[in-house]
């Protein structure tokens, strides 16, 4: 009954259109008033502030800001030119350019929507001009953008790491191989589609053109090396890597490319501050829910319920995958993660699943959710950029979605692959 009131009221508020943060907050107020048994309402503001007052979370605005600054200094166009020089000559060249650009951008940006917006605004019109279907252009843009939060840095991973109390650095490293695998699988599916449909090819770049494109994109290509290199070697913490990424973007913007103007900065800082706040305030509210979940021993109840059905970690991972895929379809990924991670964490520990591996699986699940209706933000965004209907994009995204589901299956059942880099660097350190 107590659970029904807490989660029932939360979903009711959510369904009638109340923002996630207030739905969470109000449901905890209702719960404490009805079943609080002397627990004061001061728990709510206390947890909402304390939930955000956490040093690793500071990496979020820094990576957010670095991504915004990089986009403002014309990095996207340079990366597109570089990717075109490298893969443009394969049939369906521009579709691979979308994928390669996203893989590289993933190394300094932590959000899927920002990547889709940056690459889509440049490449969807270009693909349409060259005779690709607008629906296919939108589908590739949306699918490739899901790589952004898998290859580090990643805002969802920072939030998972803080909620699940695991190392942000380890989780970042766990995303490297699955992220590259996503790129490879999308590449393969795109190749088959392009051959079948006879999509256009670009002229093969000469060595001179390739060198020029690489030189022009070199500062953008170096950003992931600095961020990842710093974290891999343990020289900087993820939060400090975020600061370095911001400073690097400012140096590139003002000193190297000279495309960043001082007058651009206020807009970028304001956008980043509000964008970060919208996410972090939910993190704060989820702190209250997480606190209640822990105090009500909901996690232990889930352990008892699920382990009565099965003890097999493989089966439990399958069930959790299905659960998070449904959550990804129905909810904002960050909200879904913040609500359900505290609920499932005791179960994960009970069946000895590595919480870092599980974190990667959850984030991958929820990114796939961005491609599925009704809450597929990437679908909506790319369909709007391409000027086509959602239905058309859904049809085109289906084979790409299948490729991403294959990566999810491999990542779920081959933990050694996911954990290879974190384990390697842990042993080196």
């Amino acid at each position, binding site marked *: 009954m107590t659970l029904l009131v807490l989660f029932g009221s939360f979903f009711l*508020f*959510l*369904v*009638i*259109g*109340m*923002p*996630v*943060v*207030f739905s969470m*907050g*109000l449901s905890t*107020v209702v719960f404490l008033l009805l079943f609080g048994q002397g627990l*004061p*309402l*001061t728990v*709510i*503001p*206390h947890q*909402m*502030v304390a939930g*955000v*007052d*956490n*040093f690793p*979370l*500071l990496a979020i*605005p*820094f990576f957010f*800001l670095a991504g915004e600054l990089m986009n403002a200094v014309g990095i996207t166009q340079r990366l597109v030119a570089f990717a075109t020089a490298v893969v443009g000559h394969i049939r369906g060249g521009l579709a691979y350019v979308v994928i390669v650009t996203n893989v590289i951008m993933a190394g300094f940006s932590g959000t899927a929507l920002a990547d889709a917006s940056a690459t889509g605004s440049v490449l969807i019109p270009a693909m349409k001009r060259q005779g690709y279907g607008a629906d296919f252009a939108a589908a590739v843009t949306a699918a490739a953008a899901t790589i952004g939060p898998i290859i580090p840095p990643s805002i969802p991973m920072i939030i998972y790491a803080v909620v699940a109390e695991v190392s942000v650095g380890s989780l970042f490293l766990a995303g490297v191989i699955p992220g590259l695998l996503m790129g490879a699988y999308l590449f393969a599916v795109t190749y088959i589609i392009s051959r079948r449909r006879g999509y256009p090819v670009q002229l093969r770049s000469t060595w001179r053109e390739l060198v020029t494109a690489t030189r022009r994109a070199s500062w953008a290509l170096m950003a992931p090396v600095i961020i990842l290199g710093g974290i891999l070697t343990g020289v900087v913490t993820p*939060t*400090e890597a*975020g*600061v*370095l990424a*911001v*400073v690097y973007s400012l140096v590139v913007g003002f000193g190297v490319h000279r495309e960043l103007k001082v007058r651009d*900065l*206020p807009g970028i*800082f*304001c956008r*980043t*501050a*509000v*964008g*970060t*706040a*919208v*996410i*972090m*305030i*939910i993190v*704060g509210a989820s702190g209250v829910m997480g606190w209640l979940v822990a105090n009500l021993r909901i996690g232990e109840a889930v352990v008892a319920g699920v382990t009565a059905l099965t003890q097999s970690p493989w089966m439990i991972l399958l069930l959790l995958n299905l659960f998070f895929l449904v959550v990804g379809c*129905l*909810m*904002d990924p*960050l*909200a879904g993660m913040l609500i359900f991670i505290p609920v499932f964490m005791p179960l994960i520990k009970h069946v000895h699943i590595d919480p870092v591996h599980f974190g990667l699986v959850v984030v991958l699940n929820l990114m796939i959710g961005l491609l599925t209706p*009704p*809450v597929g933000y990437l679908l909506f965004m790319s369909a709007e950029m391409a000027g086509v209907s959602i239905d058309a994009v859904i049809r085109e995204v289906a084979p790409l979605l299948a490729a991403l589901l294959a990566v999810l299956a491999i990542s779920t059942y081959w933990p050694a692959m996911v954990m290879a880099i974190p384990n390697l660097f842990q042993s080196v350190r």
Partner: protein
Amino acid sequence: MRRLQQSLEWSAGLLLCLMVIVGFLQVFGRYTGLIFVPWTEEAARLLFLWVVWLGAAAAMTRAGHIRFDFVVDRLPAWLRRPCEVGVHAGTGVFLIVLAWYGYEVAQSQANSSYLTFPLSIKYAYLSGVVGSLLMLLALVGTVWVKWRRSAGETGGRP
């Protein structure tokens, strides 16, 4: 309303800028050893709290908080209206609770101080109080604008 939005966005943006400077000082100091600034981590956390709460209030002025609108957008108009009223009322109640009890929490922390600089921790908790009150103000402004518009459409009867 627009003035409130702009001033909140600018305040949050400015504090974020300060946060970057403080963060850079920390990294620079730690890796070069040229300067020793012990207060950077606590100062960055305090600034972050204010960025979050002022930014959340700025988002409120333009209905920018993440919501699930799939169901409500498909409801018939006669059902959508009560939902909207319920959302505004519920949000208002929550924000009042947050501000009221948040002030109590802030007061209870008045005698605790940050370790590296002489400032009471109540200023961390006051970010939540100020943010909630500003969100409440933005909510009242939004409802007022909607009420005026609907009164205009129906010839004075809201």
